[in-house]
């Protein structure tokens, strides 16, 4: 087992968890500039495991529940928090908000508010990599809800047909807003789904960051070698509601309790043991993350608000 990788995965997951908790806290205080905010608490292992397998030149496309992907890819907390606070120092100049946080300098091609809306974009980034031979792989994160959108089928087929360097990572958190995976989808095996596209499919425990890392590494290598896409189904769970307004009445408390017991942070500590991840390691990470978040919130608070007149900027390049 790679100790450094394990530690880094844990730290990334913790950073995502604490950041989203802090975002919710700031939201309750009325600090956020928008009412739209979807957290991925419980799903951190998918983002951390996948992004750790990426190289610097690679791209990713993300979703409305995208804070984890952004942080795992190395996005900065200061400008992220500023974006959420509607400040002009935010990554999107305070006009994108939680759902559209983006930093092109780390190959992040945008968090997308339309379910499935970025599937074609990921294929296009892969297409340009193939034509320009830029050696980049595009990781396309999407939720299981998006597997039932038409463009998903079109895009995965296109990528498979042309063997584009794209890796599809389905974060199956089992709920498309209120609709359970079992109530929405006839074929639930990603191995079987992938067969329809003539590509490899993988079903992986999305609560196990190391398992996700292994699956993603293999898929990314394969894509980079020109062998085409892989469809990874990472089975995870959305610990909280779809958004703050959602009390999750469509699922039982027993189910929530059972699934929350499969916390990716706990799972990793149990799996690797205290030899690799000691209590003092975890304490140190907690302290470091707390400091980073305090600084990020301070940066956001101290930054100037986005000015109304800027809504006429950047409509055209």
């Amino acid at each position, binding site marked *: 087992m790679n100790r450094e990788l394990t530690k880094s995965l844990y730290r990334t997951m913790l950073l995502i968890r604490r950041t989203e908790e802090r975002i919710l806290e700031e939201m309750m205080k009325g600090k956020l500039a928008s009412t739209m905010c979807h957290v991925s608490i419980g799903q951190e292992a998918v983002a951390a495991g996948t992004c750790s397998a990426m190289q610097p030149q690679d791209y990713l496309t993300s979703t409305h529940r995208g804070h984890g992907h952004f942080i795992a890819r190395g996005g900065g907390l200061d400008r992220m928090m500023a974006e959420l606070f509607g400040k002009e120092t935010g990554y999107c100049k*305070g006009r994108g908000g939680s759902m559209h946080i983006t930093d092109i300098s780390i190959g992040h091609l945008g968090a997308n508010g339309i379910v499935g*809306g970025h599937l074609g974009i990921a294929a*296009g980034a892969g297409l340009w990599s193939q034509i320009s031979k830029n050696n980049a792989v595009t990781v396309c994160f999407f939720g299981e809800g998006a597997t039932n959108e038409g463009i998903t089928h079109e895009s995965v087929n296109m990528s498979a047909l042309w063997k584009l360097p794209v890796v599809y990572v389905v974060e199956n958190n089992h709920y498309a807003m209120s609709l359970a995976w079992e109530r929405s989808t006839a074929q639930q095996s990603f191995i079987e789904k992938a067969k329809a596209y003539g590509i490899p499919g993988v079903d992986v425990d999305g609560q196990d960051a190391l398992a996700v890392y292994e699956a993603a590494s293999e898929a990314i290598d394969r894509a980079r070698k020109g062998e085409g896409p892989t469809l990874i189904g990472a089975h995870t769970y959305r610990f909280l509601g779809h958004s703050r307004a959602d009390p999750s009445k469509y699922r039982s408390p027993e189910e929530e309790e059972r699934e929350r017991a499969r916390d990716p942070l706990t799972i990793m500590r149990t799996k690797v043991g205290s030899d690799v991840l000691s209590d003092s390691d975890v304490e140190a990470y907690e302290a470091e993350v707390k400091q980073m978040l305090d600084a990020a919130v301070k940066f956001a608070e101290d930054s100037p608000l986005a000015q109304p007149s800027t809504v006429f*900027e950047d409509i055209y390049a």
Partner: protein
Amino acid sequence: MPIMMYRDALRRALYEEMKADPSVFVLGEDIGLYGGAYAVTKGLLEEFGPDRIRDTPMSEAAIVGAAIGAAMVGGRPVAEIMYVDFMTLTMDQVVNQAAKIHFMFGGQIKVPCVIRTQQGTGRGAGAQHSQSLESWFIHTPGLKVVAPSTPADAYGLLRASIQDDNPVIFLEHKGLYAVKDEVPEEPFVTSLGVADVRRTGSDVTLISYSRTMQLALEVAAQLEQRDISVEVVDLRTLQPLDMETVLRSVEKTRRAVVLHEAVMTGGLGAEVSARITEALFHQLLSPVRRVAAADAPLPANVALEKYVVPNAEQVIRAIEETLAVKQQIAR
């Protein structure tokens, strides 16, 4: 000056841009081996190979999505959607993605892609293959919309569109592909957002674009016989609109008629008319008139199709009415 067909002028633009810039590539249905449903891309596969002239599956949303994605990371794709009617299948990609990316992400990412498609009637193609849907795109800030009416403009405006850093919806007309006209031999680029006064006149300004420009020029020539002097403005780019040219002309003529093949309700004619009225209300000698297709789906029967779209008689009547109002005032 060499005479060239509209479709050949478009091909020349694609060819020259692809030669000049290796990041330009073309993707779409039947554009490679087949040469394009309207033969615009004929021969380009042989010249540039299958990497840059890419036949796609029948997946309109993914074609446009792929164009956007490639544009975001360094490509300058030109996607072809065979009929504007099929653009309905791409609307999330066009409206929520292409048009929003630059703004929504704080100006970090550009989307330099062109979506070529063709629209319009004339071939009895029926309700799902004959519409003129420019209004839907004009209604979305962040897109540029172009609709050339001549071979020279088709060439110059397509080159400008490919060189532009924004998503451009490039609307060709199926009834114009075989039209022949002069195209200068020397390469040139026609700026987006600039209308063209195609005929000068003093009594009334007739504003149009795309294929109804032919109708506009025909009517202007006919009315000249009756000593009615019609100034004809070709908008060429529908977003951004060159209102400066339109208003300069209407300031002079003090009467205006807007003509298009798209349906009347919510059409570009309403927008142009409103802007003229807002700017020049007190100078106008008569209300701005619109001539457009009836608010009806298009029948496949050519005789019925003709009944829906505007004809010379309607344009003449509209012009006569704008002139009659003036006569009443004079009396």
